[in-house]
């Protein structure tokens, strides 16, 4: 599998570490309540189709959001987390 790091270009998957769904970047406020925190930490959809993953590119340290299809394994695109959050 190949992933494009927004800074380094297309790279082999072995340079990346996986960390689950991209909603991990939407941290709730400390007082958002139990349900919001439970959802943030534990509850994940299991889609057959399009999804967004978080991958860490070890060599440059970038966190990357990868648009991926769990059925076809197609990678539609990727963007830097830092750019999305800015």
């Amino acid at each position: 599998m190949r992933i494009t790091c927004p800074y380094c270009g297309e790279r082999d998957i072995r340079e990346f570490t996986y960390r689950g769904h991209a909603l991990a970047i939407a941290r709730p406020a400390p007082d958002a309540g139990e349900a919001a925190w439970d959802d943030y930490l534990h509850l994940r959809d299991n889609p057959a189709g399009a999804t967004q993953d978080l991958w860490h590119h070890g060599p440059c340290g970038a966190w990357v959001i990868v648009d991926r299809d769990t059925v076809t394994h197609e990678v539609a695109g990727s963007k830097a987390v830092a750019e999305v959050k800015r």
Partner: protein
Amino acid sequence: MRLDRSGGDVAPSLSFTFDGETVRARKGETVAAALLANDIRLVGRSFKYHRPRGIWSAGPEEPNALITLGRGAAQTPNQRATVQEVYEGLEVSSQNRWPSLKTDLLSVNDLAAPFLGAGFYYKTFMWPRAFWERVYEPVIRRAAGLGALSGAPDQEPYEKAYAHCDLLVIGSGPSGLMAALVAARAGSDVIVAEQDHALGGRLLAEVEEIDGAPAADWVAAAVAELEAAPNVRVMSRTTVTGVYDQGTYGAIERTAMHVADPGAAPRQTFWRIVAKASILASGAIERGIAFANNDRPGVMAAGAVRAYANRWGVSPGKSVTVFANNDDAHRTARDLAAAGVTVAAVIDPRADAQAIGDYPLFSGAQVTGTTGRLGLTDITIRDASGKDQSVWTDCLAVSGGWNPSVHLTCHMNGRPVWNEDLAAFVPAPDAVPGLFPAGSADGAQSTADCLRTGAEAAIAALEALGQTTEAPALPKAENGFTGHTPFWLVPGKKRAWLDMANDVTVKDVKLAAQENFASVEHMKRYTTQGMAPDQGKNSNVAALAILADATGRTIPQTGTTTFRPPFAPVPLSAMGAGARGKGFAPERFTTSHTATEDLGAPFVEAGLWYRPSYYPRAGETTWRQSCDREVQMVRNAVGVADVSTLGKIDIQGPDAAALLDFVYTNMFSTLKVGKVRYGLMLREDGHVMDDGTTARLGETHYVMTTTTAAAGQVMQHLDFVLQALRPDWDVRIASATEQWAQFAVAGPKARALLDVVLDGPIDWAAWPFMSCGNIGVAGVPGRLFRISFSGEEGFEVAVPARYGEALYRLLLSQASVLGGGPYGMEALNVLRIEKGFITHSEIHGRVTAFDIGMERMISAKKDCIGKTMAARPGLLDPARERLVGLKPTGAVKELTAGAHLFNMGAEAVRLEDQGYITSVCYSPTLGSFLGLGFLKSGPDRIGETVQMVDHLRGVKTEVEVCNPVFFDPEGGRMRG
């Protein structure tokens, strides 16, 4: 036998051995070609029935002629005689026979064949259950099988490699060469992968003309053009074995399998090729026809028979017969007759078959049987009128048509599509993104079609890469031999083989259907059809046709089995190349490594790092003696330890303090410049991630220390926090672990040692506990931190890594003057347990700040990672397993890490479990074993006695629950 051909053919110049007998061969021949040239037809025994077997094919799909190369540790079993090239001195052995190939005692299995059909083992070896693994399996395994490994470690070199290109062309027959030429001329970056040592595919094996000249001339010109093109890389002897996501292809190259003395060259190389697009020009594989005793040596694929004649000048027989349902196979009769070989008969089940040369043709006829114990001698022909006659022949060339090699199109879940006109499976459209099938792999029936579709596929692939290319002028080529009528089997009672490699017959497939293993996947597993080294390349489609017939369905309704990688066998030694022994994991050495080795210290692995365990001295016979001495040395004089393996993260910027406040539970923005603070880091779920000290070197400059084990994880965590949660902060982080060598200097004489090593007189009053700053070290700018992991007055002195070894040697020589010296991980562990300091033995991922008694370190004045979830009531329940100290009080004065704790009088079972021990040591300071562990309501039970039971090691004792800080609880020694 060798054919007398005009021009070119040189006399055999090489010799190799087959089962000890010398065989003469020509350079460029395969083992199979050389054996046939020397009239050796019997080359192996079958998997189950030990039937005599010969060579079936002329390519990598070979099911029968599996051989062992070499001897001893380098012995390589199950190689295909049809692929392996000969070289001077090559040693070849046949397989699965004893005592010899001609007299194989286990051929009695063949007599028992009526009982040994599909499912025999499942039905027979059911009772008693205890016999399954101890008796039945070893016996069956001895009887059945292929070649064997030597059992000795294989020291032959193998390699892994990587390649990148715009267009990967898989195969180099007419379609592959044409595609490669189009892409090469368009300036694309092209790789051509060909499993053979020579490019050309079937054109090397056929008598054909292209543009009015022999096809071989066109091939030679195409290869010369490709090899001269700077943008083309030709990889011969390279089989593409798998297709993976985003255009990644696996391939195995027989790099030096054909060389007599390869030296250090890798025998095989496993490639990962990344291609933006690819052309699948893998050709087609001929299929057989099932008829009685169709597995004898001398029964061969028709295309293979003429390949041996046309390419290598070898006739597999003196009197050849052909049994085929298609026009293409008539070429075998034509070509062999032209070469002067007797063609005794061509048997074609089609009533309207026409001869294309001068040979006896039996149209509307079938072959109903064969004879010849160790090799074919006669066949029985039933002619159109139903009359039987016997014909003497030593080679029967069989063809049931051709199956496109669609395998790679199935590797990403694509299912091939049945084409009724071709009576074959063809690749599904868009089965693999970016892969364009061409030529006979896509169902093309003639050389002209192959050339055309090769060019078209290349143009389509280049267009997909955004490049427009004009259609080239196509060479003029052969366009005939396309007639065929599906014909799968000759009915009869005798065994007719489908999968020769696994000894699966028509009867087995019918039995599977009869016993309701009617799904193709069930049939496959019940009969083992297609599960041999050839993976059903020769037989799967025929087996499917027979299953379809037996179950009253069409072939598309019956389906097809799934082709998975690898397409051809890949040795594990190639996949794992470089990962053997020390190559398995890189080693990280500290700057003091050599000096430590000089002192004879054994090393212990800490992640990839190697750290000294202890430093043995003369007279010490056990590690405990060294460890006890080193602990006492630190407590009474001074010890030196390399702590460079701890993670060091440099943090700079106006928001550095904000970042630290957010990732640590406690405050760092209030830390004064020149001070160090211990910090606790949580995961977002409220459990402890890591701990360590962070020093403030300047207003906007901190250096964070992580544990050795969590250095990478913490760095990744900080990256996440900065990029995903607070990209607005102006702060930068960098790992500096390898840039600094850092040594702990601990003990009552630590200052005295540093006085000698550090520049200038030091005013120690200005260096209180938990202070830090820049300092000169033997003339080099360094850093000093007054921190302690031993409970003694302690410092850590850091210098740029290039000075590490010199500083370490200086510290040791000066320490010895003071009665001190180096201490290792064992002593370091004892010192920290005596003080109740935690490591990842305690913060193992399931404990909270509350569990280790540090809940007050979670600041109420700010948010931090993990704060919200750490407040969950379940994580603050006083009854949780919480950190305590433990001391043995029973008859057994020993503690073991991993032992569990139970209340006195309670049964030592899971339901009564009260906790467990995480760290233990013998403390020479206190003269007792000490332990750290987690106990339910632990801190509320200080003074209580509980049982410790280690079921694994069989240790049992009573322990007293105590405060985890065993030694100097007020900390007076480290504050100084």
